[in-house]
């Protein structure tokens, strides 16, 4: 497995430069996966060396989590002057000049004035890019674990659940189930027996990196949310289920758990109360379907990761048959802010039935790709054009894909639609976990549908027939259309098959697999017909295959 993001061991790296006296500037060097892959660890080392060599004692250098503007890494932020420096080079001479800029507060871009940042509201990401992801003390110094302390010392479990219910928070994994309701169900389940809290960090949608960024930037915030949840529902054990493709996440999580336990913030007798919560990390083996909750639980139990029919829901009978609370990374990361500032404060953000903020991984044909957090109800157009800076290369935005393989493509003419759970569903897509892929007119929508179908086909767990065999046939039909070999009868067959797979599959993977087909057919049927009737791909992507000879077997 390639491991560009697995930074070399700490020992080989420079220690942060943290002057004791007052500082004029602190260089916060991004150490999340995106910037690390662009060499931010080298920038950090060199920067430390240059600062020490220069003999100044008023410039600090430290590691932080994701600074958001991933497209322009390696990033360095100087919070004293509210400035962000993009594409920081690792050349010593240039770094010397940069250090001068850091001190004087010149150069770079002004964070609070830049549209990429000005439009965002940070709740989940409020510590992202300001705390050192590998130092629990840093998180505590920024107010971390105050919410957990408050919950376990001043609040009853019922009060915690009530606060979360009042916040209107809904599951950020994509389905949008009310979090407070789920917590209340688990709290009532079982009779004083074992319960579990599980964090779903098996992020697998193509183009999505929200959970990864949150966990790599501030793992403690997620752990704190889980501990609060455990207190609220009466659980003493928990698991974080992370995919193996995120080695840095796994390392930072393990280190975060150890550090928090040493600090008395996890483990036995948390904050000197009788509440204890033990956490373990479980690593997935590369199956997308293990993001489905029942498959995830099976995988933790050491069984084959396939979904099972629900009910019983995990809230009633989950891990090892016990009541289990399972939430997504971002849901847990929202909890500490809700406890600190109150459910009412959180519910004041957002629109319609979707409260609070949502983190998106903005990717694709957009000027400024990166990690963003916006209040619910902002329009897609604002996200793509104001935050994302529009489509590069003079191209026009054609569609925005949300929700990953189970989502859909929203066409340009609907971009003024607010981003909330209900609006996205009515437009034929879903909120999903937060992947957002912008597409320009050089993208063929049939090809997109084929791509996502290929993904679902490969990731089908093989348990139920509609998903296992249906995705294969749908992919073949889409392939025929892309090759210009299909007839209108093939298109009808595709629609009939897609309807069956959507309605008859066992779990969300199969039920969601046809949704990209449906949404592209809904908004871009002319592209399908161009492939079929005229053997042309309007976007110029698909190559038309020569006609088959009769009896060639296809």
């Amino acid at each position, binding site marked *: 497995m390639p491991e560009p993001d697995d930074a070399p061991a700490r020992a080989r790296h420079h220690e942060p430069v943290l002057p004791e006296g007052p500082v004029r500037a602190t260089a916060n060097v991004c150490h999340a996966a995106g910037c690390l892959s662009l060499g931010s660890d080298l920038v950090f080392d060199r920067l430390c060396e240059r600062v020490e060599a220069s003999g100044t004692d008023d410039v600090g250098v430290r590691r932080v989590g994701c600074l958001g503007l991933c497209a322009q890494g390696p990033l360095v932020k100087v919070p004293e002057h509210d400035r962000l420096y993009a594409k920081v080079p690792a050349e010593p001479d240039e770094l010397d000049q940069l250090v001068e800029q850091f001190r004087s507060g010149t150069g770079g871009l002004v964070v609070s004035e830049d549209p990429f940042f000005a439009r965002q509201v940070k709740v989940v990401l409020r510590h992202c890019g300001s705390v050192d992801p590998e130092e629990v003390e840093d998180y505590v110094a920024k107010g971390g674990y105050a919410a957990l302390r408050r919950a376990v010392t001043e609040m009853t479990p019922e009060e915690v659940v009530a606060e979360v219910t009042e916040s209107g928070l809904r599951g950020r994994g994509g389905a949008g189930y009310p979090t407070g309701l789920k917590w209340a169900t688990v709290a009532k389940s079982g009779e004083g027996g074992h319960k579990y809290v599980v964090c779903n960090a098996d992020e697998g949608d193509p183009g999505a990196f929200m959970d990864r960024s949150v966990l790599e930037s501030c793992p403690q915030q997620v752990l704190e949310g889980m501990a609060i949840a455990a207190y609220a529902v009466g659980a003493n054990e928990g698991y974080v289920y992370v995919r193996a493709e995120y080695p840095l996440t796994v390392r930072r999580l393990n280190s975060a758990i150890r550090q928090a336990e040493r600090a008395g913030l996890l483990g036995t007798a948390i904050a000197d109360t009788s509440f204890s919560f033990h956490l373990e990390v479980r690593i997935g083996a590369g199956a997308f379907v293990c993001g489905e909750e029942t498959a995830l639980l099976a995988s933790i139990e050491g069984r084959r990761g396939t979904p099972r029919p629900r009910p019983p829901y995990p809230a009633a009978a989950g891990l090892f048959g016990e009541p289990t609370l399972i939430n997504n990374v971002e849901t847990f990361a929202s909890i500490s802010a809700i406890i600190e500032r109150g459910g009412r404060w959180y519910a004041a953000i957002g629109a319609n039935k979707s409260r609070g903020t949502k983190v998106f991984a903005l990717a694709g044909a957009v000027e400024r790709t990166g990690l963003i957090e916006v209040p619910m109800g902002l329009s897609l157009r604002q996200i793509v054009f104001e935050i994302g800076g529009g489509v590069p290369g003079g191209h026009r935005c054609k569609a925005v894909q949300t929700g990953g393989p189970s989502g859909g493509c929203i066409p340009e003419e609907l971009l003024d639609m607010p981003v909330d759970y209900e609006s996205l569903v009515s437009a034929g897509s879903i909120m999903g976990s937060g992947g957002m892929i912008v597409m320009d007119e050089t993208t063929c929508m049939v090809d997109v549908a084929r791509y996502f179908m290929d993904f679902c086909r490969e990731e089908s767990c093989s348990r139920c027939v509609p998903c*296992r065999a249906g995705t294969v*046939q749908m992919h073949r039909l889409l392939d025929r259309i892309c090759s210009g070999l299909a007839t209108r009868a093939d298109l009808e067959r595709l629609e009939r098959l897609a309807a069956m797979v959507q309605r*008859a599959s066992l779990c969300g993977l199969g039920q969601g697999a046809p949704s990209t087909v449906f949404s592209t057919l809904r908004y871009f049927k002319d592209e399908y017909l161009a492939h079929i009737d005229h053997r042309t791909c309007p976007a110029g992507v698909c190559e038309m295959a020569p006609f088959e000879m009769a009896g060639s077997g296809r």
Partner: protein
Amino acid sequence: MSVVTLVIDGHDVAGQSGQSILSVAREHGIAIPTLCHLDGLSEVGACRLCMVEVRGARRPLAACVTEVQEHMEVTTTTDELTDYRRQIIELLFTERNHVCAVCIANRHCELQDLAKALGMTHFDLPALNPSAGVDASHERFGIDHNRCVLCTRCVRVCAEIEGAHTWDVRGRASEARVITDLGTPWGESPTCTSCGKCVQVCPTGALFEKGRAVAEGKERRPYVPFLVARNRRS
């Protein structure tokens, strides 16, 4: 156990709480097609053939894993459900190599029976014709993966009735196969007791007894009803 009354296809029927829709329907002589289900084994809800419409439910529910509830209104056959079932059978036929004319289970095959019952006259999806492999290493039995529908009856009967857990599933998507132990050839499996239950419960000709020719796989599962009764009691 309390008695639950519900309506299936317009008939007032009664079952016990905890019972599945499928079980109550069959007790009342209402037929629902199934493939992965076998009385006495645990349910997996995998073949999706037993889907029924339940009033108020957003999508069809698998009758084998859905418990009956008071006042439930169930419809077992609609045009839509029949179409879905036919498509599922068609998908199974095209997925691997089900050539009845040369199959040991010809005329004794549940897949074949279902195709006939559901009126599948042909399939318009292309047959994928994979080369799925055969394991004939066992002294008395063999498995032809080309005829396997992944119902996992063999996996369940081996684990739940025989208690050997020799069979399991490996891989995913179209690469999924039932395997013995961790993929060792069947004949070398140290856990297999050679009881033959897996062969008896296989709905198609995938698992077969050696020495039988085309359409000779007739004497199937003589002791399955006995096993089932025993399992129900325990």
